[in-house]
């Protein structure tokens, strides 16, 4: 019998949904029956636990739940064998913000920064990630049911964000130019693992979708949004496409079958 998987997230579940359909069309999807719930931006902050259910407190979020799940206005936690939490503010943008002001051993781009021990950097980030909606939801689910909880972060931004003036500059270019992308990406994963560890398992962004440790290869961002021109430009570097979603399902497969 297929695993009943509850997928909860923000807009980044779109890639998972599209990827699921793509994998299904090829007959390579994991043996799971996913039900999606989500809301854009920080909409999941307006969802509260009550009587074993996660219930939206705003009408627009209820509408999103119904649209996305196929009619359900709440998440009844006992209905599922496992949970997959997606995005929900776990992003490498946060470590890039830290990298702008602080540095640690193993990095090259240290000029003008306060040096800290790498253990501090990891603890600081784990503490910050522990305050995200992702971990908040994980703790609520874990307090209610014992089903496995898997988590995936928001994808790194598309590689063109490094040089584009069309999107906010979180410092990808500086980090990559200094040769620090891989080290930053590594610490990002370790910090998220530490934040998630009390509740579940963190599955890293598939390595073959990653460029320079902290970016996503452009092919996984192409046509991800209506605002993407499809010709190498665009204004949305944060969301990924069906091909990316497919790769994430592949990365999740071992954990889902465990």
């Amino acid at each position: 019998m297929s695993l009943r998987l509850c997928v909860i997230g923000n807009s980044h579940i779109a890639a998972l949904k599209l990827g699921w359909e793509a994998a299904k069309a090829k007959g390579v999807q994991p043996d799971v029956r996913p039900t999606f719930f989500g809301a854009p931006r920080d909409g999941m902050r307006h969802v509260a636990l009550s009587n074993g259910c996660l219930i939206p407190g705003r009408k627009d979020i209820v509408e999103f739940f119904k649209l996305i799940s196929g009619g359900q206005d709440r998440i009844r936690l006992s209905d599922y064998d496992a949970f997959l939490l997606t995005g929900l503010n776990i992003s490498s943008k946060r470590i890039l913000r830290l990298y702008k002001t602080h540095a640690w051993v193993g990095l090259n781009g240290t000029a003008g920064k306060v040096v800290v021990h790498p253990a501090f950097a990891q603890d600081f980030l784990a503490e910050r990630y522990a305050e995200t909606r992702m971990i908040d939801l994980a703790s609520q689910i874990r307090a209610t049911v014992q089903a496995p909880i898997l988590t995936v972060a928001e994808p790194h931004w598309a590689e063109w964000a490094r040089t584009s003036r069309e999107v906010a500059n979180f410092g990808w270019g500086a980090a990559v130019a200094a040769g620090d992308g891989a080290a930053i990406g590594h610490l990002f994963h370790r910090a998220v693992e530490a934040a998630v560890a009390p509740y579940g398992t963190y599955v890293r962004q598939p390595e073959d979708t990653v460029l320079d440790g902290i970016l996503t290869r452009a092919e996984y961002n192409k046509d991800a949004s209506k605002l993407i021109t499809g010709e190498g430009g665009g204004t949305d570097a944060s969301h990924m496409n069906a091909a990316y979603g497919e790769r994430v399902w592949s990365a999740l497969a071992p954990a889902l079958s465990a």
Partner: protein
Amino acid sequence: MAKAVKSSGTAADRPATIRPELAVLGGDPAFPVAAALRRAGANVLDAEPPPEGTSDALAQRYGFGLASVRAGRLDSLGLMRNLVEEALTDRQPRHLFWTQPDGQVIDGFRAAIDPQGLPDLAAASSYRKAHLAALRRVLTSAPILILCLTRTGAMVDPADGSAFPEPPPGTVLPPSANLAAHAPDPAELDADFATLHGILQAANPGLRLRVVVKPAGSDPVASRDEATLRACASGWAGRFPSVSADPLFDHLLDRTLHSTSGSGDDSAIFRVLVGLAEGADLAVLLGAGPASAPSPSPPQLDKAARRERRKLRQARRQKSKKDSSVVCEDELLEAFS
């Protein structure tokens, strides 16, 4: 690694006007003078601040915010003299770095703040250099330096007379570093202070120093140390025109550290405490309204330019929020409809 010195204070505490910058040296976790002054609204420099958003518990665990640099436990004059000598002169302690059995290298002068150590001597040395550079910027730029003393003695390396804080339990020292507890007599303390004062004045001729001695409470050893340090501090204030020491100030600091949240009484104490720290006269502070800053304030930023920058930031934020809202909703609607 260079970093502009940051004047800090929590958002809630931050004074509305730009106050003189205070440097604080001395980091006894039981007597966090920099924290007390920040709480009272003083403009305390922090050249090695934690990232924004660091919790108090994490900052405390890694030794942030105790002083204007992250120097670890720095509670005696010997430790301060060592550190200032290392930052502003050619003196190099012989047993500065301690290699552990697992190969990690610990900075012996501030072993407690990064007890895990660093992977090799080059890394430890680079961290030390960055720390000293930060300290140099503070010591050469601040108009006022507050030295906080808790104890008279320290662990001393007989090889070269360097003082060290107590090593954390389990730390392995170099075989030739036979640290031993040393309690200097007042003459030694006077000599240490004269050395320290001379180095500081040479680096920053206008620098004014305030010596703070931690009120001891009922502990007999601490009380003995307090009495010795108070007598010495009083002597230093009499001997050097740029030095001040005042038990009232020290007790106000202690009171600020132990008071709960800002009552009306606290705000009066805060005002006097900050005024004294900035060098104002007590009589003026008690008689007049707001604490007057005797030092010339740093130049005010151009208000029109600041307003313009703020507008631009807000516009950018709003644009970014609007764009991301559209994109996030579109993503979901496209995928699920």
